[in-house]
């Protein structure tokens, strides 16, 4: 018979590509999802390099800068010419006539904005000791400006909190908690969900019944009251890392139920598929059927579910911290920062305290968009 012309490789690759390649390709076409992915990467890198990027440590506050607005950066000198960016430090003076304490910019002193400035000591990634920070202030000679005390010169790009701490630094340190808690708890619910859902769907019978009832019960109790009740059970005065662990567990306490339900449903429906029967007839073991044939069949779906579940955990963490049931100062998270906005009065007086909210909103949105993109991409042949 006739030879036939080879089709162009591009056409061919569409049919030959693996599910993951197709998913990745499709995701790249989803511009919003791609953008979200980049944004999230930046946020997570920010959390990873928090000590480096943040100009000040958590304990470095200066009472002089209490509740001050974002520091003004000057780009022009007295004559109006463009020059090296600088800031004026604040200075406390006593008005002799009115006996009032006046805090104002000390225009006689200039601290220059500089990169890679020495500051508080920290360990990068937990083991490289260094004291270099991405940016900071230096004086005329190039020595780092004092960061605390009465003559402190500080640059708080997002303003300062009630203690005079830098909100930007706190947001970065807070992101370590706020960005990883939902992730870890999502991973935890992922494992729990697949395990329990899988057991439930694969074995059936009374095991299935018991797990189903537990899921039903847990998903009938509204999540925030449940979280509140569980966090009330956290013993007071425990270390930050233990607190972290507790919150993670509490958040994953509900997350797994939905996932388990899905996994169970998929197991039951996939168990009857012809290819599973075929594998069984070919002598493939049960475990191998589950791992090699069943789970890949809906893994992409689960990952989508997981991504879409993360925003809920982020909001849960902020809500809990806000109610005073989660992380507490001096440990910081975005929820703790938002708790400090507290009421109308403080929002009206110090609007920059709402800046952490922007980060929460952006993160939640990014996870939502990414999840949406993944969901579309998970159905690659559509």
């Amino acid at each position, binding site marked *: 018979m006739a030879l036939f012309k080879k089709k162009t490789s591009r056409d061919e690759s569409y049919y030959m590509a693996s599910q993951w390649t197709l998913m990745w390709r499709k995701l790249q076409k989803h511009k919003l999802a791609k953008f979200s992915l980049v944004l999230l990467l930046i946020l997570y890198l920010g959390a990873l390099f928090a000590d480096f990027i943040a100009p000040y440590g958590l304990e470095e506050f200066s009472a002089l800068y209490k509740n001050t607005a974002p520091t003004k950066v000057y780009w022009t000198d007295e004559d109006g010419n463009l020059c090296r960016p600088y800031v004026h430090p604040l200075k406390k003076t006593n008005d002799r006539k009115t006996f009032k304490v006046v805090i104002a910019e000390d225009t006689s002193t200039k601290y220059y904005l500089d990169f890679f400035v020495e500051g508080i000591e920290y360990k990068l990634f937990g083991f490289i000791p260094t004291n270099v920070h991405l940016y900071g202030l230096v004086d005329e000679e190039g020595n780092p400006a004092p960061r605390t005390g009465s003559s402190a010169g500080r640059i708080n790009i997002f303003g300062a909190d009630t203690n005079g701490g830098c909100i930007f630094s706190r947001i970065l340190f807070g992101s370590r908690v706020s960005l990883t808690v939902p992730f870890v708890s999502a991973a935890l619910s992922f494992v729990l969900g697949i395990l329990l859902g899988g057991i439930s769907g694969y074995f059936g019978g009374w095991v299935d019944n018991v797990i189903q009832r537990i899921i039903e019960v847990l998903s009938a109790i509204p999540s925030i009251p449940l979280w509140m009740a569980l966090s009330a*059970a956290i*013993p007071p005065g425990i270390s930050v890392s233990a607190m972290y662990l507790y919150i993670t567990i509490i958040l994953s306490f509900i997350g797994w139920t939905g996932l388990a339900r899905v996994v169970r449903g998929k197991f039951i429906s996939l168990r009857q598929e012809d290819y599973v029967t075929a594998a069984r007839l070919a002598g493939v073991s049960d475990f191998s059927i589950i791992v090699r044939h069943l789970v890949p069949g809906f893994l992409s779906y689960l990952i989508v579910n997981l991504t879409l579940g993360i*925003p809920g955990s982020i909001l849960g963490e902020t*809500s809990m911290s806000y109610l005073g049931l989660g992380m507490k100062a001096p440990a910081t998270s975005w929820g703790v920062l938002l708790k400090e906005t507290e009421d109308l009065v403080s929002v*009206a007086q110090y609007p920059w305290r709402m800046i952490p909210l922007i980060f*929460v909103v952006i993160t939640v*949105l990014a996870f*939502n968009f990414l999840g949406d993109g993944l969901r579309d991409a998970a159905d690659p042949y559509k």
Partner: protein
Amino acid sequence: MRKYIGKRLLMFIPTIILISFVIFFIIQLPPGDYVDSYVGALAAEGEIFTEEEILELRKQFGLDDPWIIQYFNWVKDIILRGDFGYSFEYGRDVWSVIMDRLYLTLAVSFIILIFQYGVSLPVGIYCANHQYSAGDYIWSFFGFIGTATPNFLLAIIIMYYIYVTTGNVYLGLFSTEMLQNGMRWEYVPEFLGRCAIPLIVIGTSGTCGIIRTVRAQMLDEQARQYTLTARAKGCSEWTITYKYCLRAALNPVVSGLAGSLRTIFSGSTVSAIVMNLAIQGPVLLTALKSQDMYLAGTIVLIQAVLVLVGTLLSDIALAWLDPRIRFSERS
């Protein structure tokens, strides 16, 4: 159909018992009990209790038993006498504390539920029919902002905005006059106005979820073969959308009813604390903090039971909507 409902009702009872058990277990988890926090609070004011007095107090409140016995006593009293226990904090029985705010809580939740579905169904249908139009994008934008902002902060932002623009602070659901003079007809508009903020705050997150579900479902259904059949028959697009697609698309929306109730209860708990609403959220928080366990337990239990009722209602509605479910239940 009647048999189906009966069967569902019967399954209700073991689930409620299991829920009450789980709730009680969680509520009693915190170390110590109400007596500890009571004694601690008084000790801070300089009043010191002796060991015997503390033991006596415990005995009086029935807190000296192991928790499982306490649980059985609690359940026994609920079933036999409709007695939900004693609130240590308020010094009277739990049911009377709850009744103070129950109707208002239910009314607020119900109004929010109606609001959610009333807004999200038409919007979802609109977005599906005008996929990728400007309206679709605008609604998606609002929807995402709504889901992405924590409820309580949205409350603060809205209240701040109202304060700046009108100079009034709409805290709570009732004005002072209303509380002094009792509810009168002329107060209804203001009451509804005051309801608007919690409505928006608590309602938005759920609304967006439903909009997205409706939109996705409608798009799914519109791609089905039967819409093609209907179009080939000469049906109008209106008939195709509302008679065929919508009815099929309602399925997941209706089964999400219980989920909506849950988010409303969740959302209202935190937002009520921020906005100082006289519903059960703030009571629950203080009860949890002071280990007033029967009160906290009962509030969570009531919410859970309401969610279960929601599940039941949505199952019945599903059976009514979708003949396939009706038939599979019958056989």
